[in-house]
C-alpha cells in the first residue's frame, strides 16, 4: 500500500506504524474511558436512565418527530429545487431582465444566514398580517436560502455540458427552449445528482432550526421529551444518533451515485 505521502513500508517503517497503531488505539480508548467515567461518576449510566429508550412509546414519539423532520425536508427540498432551477435558467438567460434579478437573488441570499430569515418570518411577517402556520414558518425560510444553493448547483451542471450538445440541438432545428429541455437538462441533471443529494443532507440538517420556531421536528421533540422525563443527555444522545444514521445513509447514497456516474463517464 503506497500513496502520495508514503511508499511500501520497510521493516523499520512497519515497526513505527505498529507503534503508532498502538498509540492511536490507546488514545481512542482513553477518550472513550474518560467519557464513560464522566457518565458513571454522575450516575448517568444507571440502567433506569437508559431503559426508557428501549420502550416503544418513547421511540414512537421520536419517530413522529423524525417524520415531521422528513416532511419539512422533502417539501422544502422540492420547492427549493424548483425555485433553484428557475433561478439557474434565469441566470443563464440571454435576457438581461431575467439574468440580473436571478443573479442578485443568489448573491444576496448566499450571504444572509438562514436563522435570520427564520426570524424575519417569525417576527416581521406577522406584523404585516402574514402569520403562517408553524410548518411554513420553518419551510419558507429554508426554501428561500436553499434555493440559492440549488441554483448554483444547477448552473454549474448546465455549464459543464459541452457546447457541442447545444450547438447540435440548434443545428437540427430545435428551438433554444427545446434544446435546453431535451438535450442539456437531462444530461446536467444526471451530472449534478450527487451534489443535489449532499445539499439535501445540508437541508435536512437545517430543519433542526425547527427547534427555534417550536415546530415539532426531531430536535424539538427531543427537547419536549427531555423536559418531560428529565433524561436530558440520554435524550439528546439518542436524537443525535438518529440524525447521524439518517444523514450518513444519505451521504453514502451520494457517494455511490458519484462513483456510478464516474464509472459511466
Amino acid at each position, binding site marked *: *500500500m503506497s*500513496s*502520495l*505521502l*508514503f*511508499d511500501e*513500508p520497510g521493516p523499520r*517503517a512497519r515497526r513505527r*506504524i505498529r507503534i*503508532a*497503531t498502538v498509540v*492511536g*488505539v490507546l488514545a*481512542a480508548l482513553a477518550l472513550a474511558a474518560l467519557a464513560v467515567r*464522566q*457518565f458513571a*461518576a*454522575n450516575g*448517568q449510566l444507571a440502567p433506569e436512565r437508559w431503559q426508557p429508550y428501549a420502550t416503544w412509546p418513547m421511540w414512537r414519539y421520536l419517530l413522529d418527530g423524525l417524520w415531521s423532520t422528513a416532511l419539512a425536508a422533502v417539501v422544502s427540498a422540492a420547492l427549493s429545487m424548483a425555485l433553484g432551477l428557475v433561478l439557474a435558467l434565469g441566470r443563464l438567460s440571454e435576457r438581461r431582465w431575467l439574468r440580473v434579478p436571478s443573479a442578485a437573488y443568489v448573491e*444576496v441570499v*448566499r*450571504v*444572509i*444566514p*438562514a*436563522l*435570520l430569515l427564520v*426570524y*424575519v418570518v417569525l*417576527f*416581521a411577517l406577522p*406584523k404585516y398580517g402574514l402569520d403562517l402556520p408553524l410548518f411554513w414558518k420553518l419551510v419558507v425560510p429554508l426554501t428561500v436560502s436553499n434555493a440559492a444553493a440549488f441554483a448554483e448547483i444547477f448552473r454549474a451542471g448546465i455549464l459543464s455540458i459541452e457546447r457541442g450538445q447545444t450547438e447540435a440541438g440548434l443545428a437540427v432545428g430545435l428551438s433554444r427552449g427545446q434544446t435546453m429541455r431535451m438535450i442539456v437538462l437531462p444530461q446536467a441533471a444526471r451530472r449534478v445528482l450527487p451534489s443535489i443529494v449532499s445539499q439535501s*443532507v445540508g437541508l435536512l*440538517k*437545517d430543519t*433542526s*432550526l425547527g*427547534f*427555534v420556531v417550536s415546530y415539532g421536528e426531531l*430536535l424539538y421533540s*427531543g*427537547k419536549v421529551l*427531555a423536559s418531560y422525563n428529565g433524561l*436530558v*443527555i440520554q435524550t*439528546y*444522545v439518542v*436524537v*443525535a444518533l438518529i*440524525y*447521524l444514521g439518517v*444523514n*450518513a445513509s444519505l*451521504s453514502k447514497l451520494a457517494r455511490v451515485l458519484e462513483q456510478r456516474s464516474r464509472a459511466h463517464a
Partner: protein
Amino acid sequence: MSVLLDHLPVIWQGLVVTLQLTVASFLGAAVLGVLVTAMRVSPVGVLRALGTAYVEAFQNLPLLVLLVLAFFGLPEIGIKAEPLVTAIVVISIYEAAYIAEALRSGVNSVGKGQGEAARALGLTFRQSLWYVILPQALRTVVQPLGNIIIALTMNTLLAGAISVVDLTEEAKRINLVEAQPIPIFVGVGLIYALIASGVGFVTGRLERRLVMVR
C-alpha cells in the same frame, strides 16, 4: 435604519461577540482540521479510520443538535463551561470536519511527483507533509476555505439558541422593545453580508496572489 443607530452600543457589543465566535472558532477548527487531515493521509490504518470517522460523524450531525447536546447535556456529566466557551468549542469541532475535507481534497490535488521527490530527498512523513505537501495543498483550497469561513459566520447565529448573546440575539432584544422588525433584521442582515463579502474579497485576493501556474 435609525432604530439601529439608536441602539448602536448594544449592536456593537453583539458584533464583538459574533466576531469573537467567528475568529476563535475558525482558529480552533483550523488546528483541529489540519490534525484530522494529517491522520487521514497517514500510513497508519487506525489513524486513517479515526480521521474518516470524525469527518463522517460531524458532517452528518446538525450543528444545533451538537450545541444543544453540549449546553444542556454536558453539565449532567459534570462538565460545565460558559455558554460562549461551549459555543466556540462545539463550532470548532463541527467546522474542523469541513476544513479537513477541504484540505484532503487539496492534498490529493498535489502531484504525486512532489511526494516522491520529498521522500527521495530523505524527508520523513511529517517533514514531507509539513514542508512540501501542505503548503501546496493550502494554495489550492483558499477559495473553499473562504466559503467555509463564510458558512462558519452564518453558523455562529446558532449560538443564540444556547444563550450566547451575539449580534442576532441583540437584534431580537431590540425588536422586543422597538417592534420594528424589518429595519432591525435587514440592518443586521447587511452586517452579516458585509462580513461575508469581506471574507470573500480577502480570499479572492489571496488566491490570486498565491496561485501557482503549473
